[in-house]
């Protein structure tokens, strides 16, 4: 009986794991402290990261920064702001790349690297885990529904 149970678990785990979600926190949207933006709609943020919108209101080129597609922050951001799982967004970018239209945003491996990128680039926008300390040079943007 135990052997059958472990066999089922071994075979079924790849499928079961797609239904299990890690404990969900949210993410904070951050911009450089010199950016005049203080609040944005979810669709505006999504459009910047999908490069459907490429500039800020002041005409400056926006620099969105993603996290790696295996990170929890990326998963939460993708579902909360794009309304889609990460693998769907990865496929979207593959279509954009290989039809010669656009390439995805810069990717960083951690909250710390995202914070450093946003601090160093006046027109950057990124996201970090809800509990991450943002520090100087970066501010959190209020998200409007």
């Amino acid at each position, binding site marked *: 009986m135990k052997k059958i149970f472990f066999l089922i678990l071994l075979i079924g785990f*790849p499928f079961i794991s797609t239904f299990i979600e890690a404990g969900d926190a949210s993410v904070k949207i951050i911009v450089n402290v010199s950016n005049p933006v203080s609040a944005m709609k979810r669709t505006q943020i999504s459009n910047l990261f999908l490069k459907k919108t*490429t500039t800020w209101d002041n005409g400056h080129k926006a620099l969105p920064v993603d996290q790696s597609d295996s990170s929890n922050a990326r998963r939460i951001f993708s579902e909360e702001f794009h309304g889609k799982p990460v693998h769907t967004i*990865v496929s979207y970018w*593959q279509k954009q*790349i*290989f039809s*010669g*239209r656009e390439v995805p945003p810069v990717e960083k491996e951690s909250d710390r690297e995202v914070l450093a990128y946003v601090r160093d680039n006046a027109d950057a926008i990124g996201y970090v885990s809800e509990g991450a300390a943002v520090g100087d040079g970066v501010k959190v943007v209020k998200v409007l529904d």
Partner: protein
Amino acid sequence: MGTIQLLKKGFLLIWQLRSFSSRRAAAIGAMLLLLGFWMGGATLFAAELGDSNLTVHGYLTQAYANSHGGQILGIPDDGTTDYRTAALQFRYNMSSDDTFVIQLSHERIGKSVLQTIKPDVHLDWVFYQHQLLDSVMVKIGKVPIPHGIYNEVLDVGTLLPFYRPPSQFYGEAAFSTETVDGALISHVLRIGEWELRTDLYGGEWDFDYIIDGVISPVRSKSALGTQLWLQTPIEGLRVGVGGYRSTDLGVPILPPGAKETRTEWLASIDADFDHFVVQAEYLASDAKSDYFVDYYLLGGIKLFQKIRINGMVEIANLDLPGFKDNIKLQKDYAVGVNYAFRPNVIVKVEQHWLKTLNTEDPLVPLFMDPIRTQYYIVSLSTSF
């Protein structure tokens, strides 16, 4: 050799690839361009844009294919692993609005007669792109043509439900082109949740005309085309229409020196949802020498984000004025299963049953009835 000299030399060598014959020039040209950008571009613009201005992407699909009842699409009845597509794309941000893109590709199609004229390394695209406004973009050079659902991504295995898109519709390796030597302008209009994308292109291209295993190169000149896509408020559902008009020179069934005008138009429905996909397209291509119609229906079910089961029916008919009308060129029924280890690593197994006049061995004359043949392909696709 300084940066500018390297870039000039690289670009001149790449330009020689228009004849598709200089493999060594392609390799050297690409290396010189890369070296030139690496030496000069980063120091000019890196500080402004942050991370590196050069991005590299690529894809590879390796397959094993086997047919039964007649060789088709280069697939022999004793099987082949000489079946592959690959590409490397280099994209350099010259500034926040200007980009230089070059894509080199490699393709093997088994025992197809087209293999005799395909170079090992082919210049897919080389173009300059300028973002005029947030909604308007211009490309100049050898530019991928937006034509239906799949023309821009014909060989990208991680984006295709089968090894290739419907073969007659997209003219696998013959009677079609993926690029235009010219210019393209794109415009996006968003009103609420609707989005209308309009592409206009013009220029020239080459394509290969095959009759009874004999390849004849044809040049399409003065081509003007368009592709419109309307993204609806239903996420994943879009409809499109497109077409072009061109003047073809060197069509083998016409008298020497003769030209003919070709008009082609198509309509598409693309419904790509979280759990299933349905796609249908219709194409009509009209010239003095022939009238070609093709349509297909493709459906797929997505399971557990990793498995996809696909089915497809494609039908192609041909009229040859003064010779024979309503030639049943091909019917293709296909089923396949895909497993995605990750979105960019996918294994596919597919089976096709055909009734066709397009076999390469035996060659079947157009005035005869189509013959039954079948083939299967097992492939691994990856991209980065």
